């Protein structure tokens, strides 16, 4: 996207471009939309948990949608900007403050050199994202900047960020002379985030193998997200579910959003860092449109599922793409 308005400098009068992690937070990693094309080697895609949040704030800043961001959990990082930066936050609401002044999510924010971003309170959601305008200078591994913690590669040295780590924004941005910071992502575009969402699913290959009672249980009960949940998968606690007859399956590819039945009758939903293959029954798949709702849940949140057909799932995904197109157009317009 071309620049009509915001002025970018790569050197900014000799000032060093940097963003320093003063406190690392519990799990802060560099992620983009993931590393595709290497699943056949057992290399999982990884990437951000909440793709909608990240695509939206990248579009808002005029970045490529796949630009790498910081994914933070609560407690989140404390960050010092070493140079003038324009950034945006999206996803969870962690009570962000810039030098003590509250900053909103879903809109561009100007941070002057030496200002400090901190997060004080977990208001809603479980993962917040920080994107900077122009992106970060990062080496890519297999075409992606996503951190693969298990393989200790990708992102920032293949690990979560620690105190003293310094990231380098590609460009420095002066504060625009005209106030354009009223630009905001409309709440109507955003998922209906909640700590107890209803998430739409489509049937998986083994859904029909469930006993009739278990099919109802999958659709009608509320599940609790167990504290054994992380970026790899969410364990769901509920009344046990069972197959009508035992079934031996060979391992095959699985995906972000695949809901598997474990031998103890509980469910696991595979999340961004899922393994490439699995051999448990595939009961259902969370539709792409609703993955962000799930991605913002944490331990002790609840979720219910609503079964839709595959055609409807596709329509919902396409509808969201059309909304994002409008956001793209809107962001370009506002920049002129």
């Amino acid at each position, binding site marked *: 996207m071309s620049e009509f308005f915001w002025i970018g400098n790569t050197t900014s009068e000799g000032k060093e471009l940097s963003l320093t992690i003063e406190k690392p937070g519990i799990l802060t990693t560099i992620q983009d939309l993931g590393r595709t094309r290497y699943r056949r080697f057992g290399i999982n895609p990884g990437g951000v948990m909440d793709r909608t949040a990240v695509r939206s704030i990248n579009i808002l800043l005029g970045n490529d949608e796949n630009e790498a961001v910081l994914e933070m959990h609560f407690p989140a990082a404390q960050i010092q900007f070493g140079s003038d930066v324009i950034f945006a936050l999206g996803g969870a609401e962690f009570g962000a403050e810039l030098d003590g002044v509250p900053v909103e999510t879903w809109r561009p924010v100007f941070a002057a050199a030496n200002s400090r971003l901190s997060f004080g309170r977990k208001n809603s959601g479980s993962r917040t994202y920080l994107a900077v305008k122009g992106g970060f200078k990062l080496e890519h591994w297999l075409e992606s900047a996503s951190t693969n913690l298990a393989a200790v590669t990708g992102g920032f040295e293949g690990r979560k960020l620690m105190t003293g780590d310094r990231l380098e924004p590609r460009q420095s941005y002066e504060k625009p002379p005209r106030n354009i910071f009223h630009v905001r992502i409309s709440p109507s575009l955003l998922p209906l985030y909640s700590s107890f969402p209803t998430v739409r699913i489509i049937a998986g290959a083994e859904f029909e193998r469930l006993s009739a009672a278990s099919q109802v249980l999958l659709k009608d009960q509320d599940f609790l997200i167990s504290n054994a949940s992380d970026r790899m998968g969410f364990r769901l606690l509920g009344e046990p579910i069972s197959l009508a007859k035992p079934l031996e399956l060979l391992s095959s590819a699985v995906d972000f959003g695949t809901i598997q039945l474990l031998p103890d009758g509980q469910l696991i939903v595979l999340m961004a860092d899922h393994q490439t*293959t699995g051999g448990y029954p595939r009961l259902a798949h969370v539709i792409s449109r609703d993955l962000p709702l799930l991605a913002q849940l944490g331990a002790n949140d609840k979720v219910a599922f609503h079964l839709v057909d595959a055609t409807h799932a596709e329509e919902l995904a396409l509808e969201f793409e059309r909304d994002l197109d409008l956001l793209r157009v809107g962001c370009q317009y506002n920049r002129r």
Partner: protein
Amino acid sequence: MNDESIRIFPLGDSALTVEFGNAISPELNRKAIALADHIEKNPFPGLVESVPAYASTTIFFDLLKVRRSFAEYPTAFEAVKKCVRDLIADLAVSPNIDPRLVEIPVAFDRKSDFDLGYIAEEHGLTIDEVIEIFKSKTYRVYMLGFLPGFSYMGEVDERIATPRKQTPRTLVPKGSIGIAGRQTGIYSLASPGGWQIIGRTEVEMFTPDAARPTYLQAGDEVRFVSV
């Protein structure tokens, strides 16, 4: 190739799986690999990647690109299914006449906390007999999965086939060779895992910065030799 027993089903709204059967067999696996390769060489608009497994191939696609390129189909799933059906029809499965044969040196854990002793005891064999039976076979790499570069190989001789451990280890060292039923595999990275561990190799199964990051690929044949 045309086969009535092929099953095609959605894996979510952005992928579908072609299932050739539900058995560990070189023949089904050759079909899975051949289809994955064939798709990569003849990509349809919107293809993301194809992933062969034991007896299936999963095709990941960009829903939006598929819908834009195949407007005449009601859904992306139907469009990709048609592309895949066409590719299957003209797929000539080479009988894998010349698979790559890879020799992997192993230090067997004769005296350690690992599982050779357990396997020997379970089957009424000596540790040396277990090792000899294990080494006597040539294994096929059916698929990579679980970890970057982790190879699922088969089939382990019935006489030493052993189910996974009841409680997985919290940390299996990198390079460990394990048995799970009639499968064997090499832990490319240190990881939690439940396979019965019999030895270790120094060969790097996963090298992130190499042009080809994994040492083995699906379709390879492997022999284990003692160091």
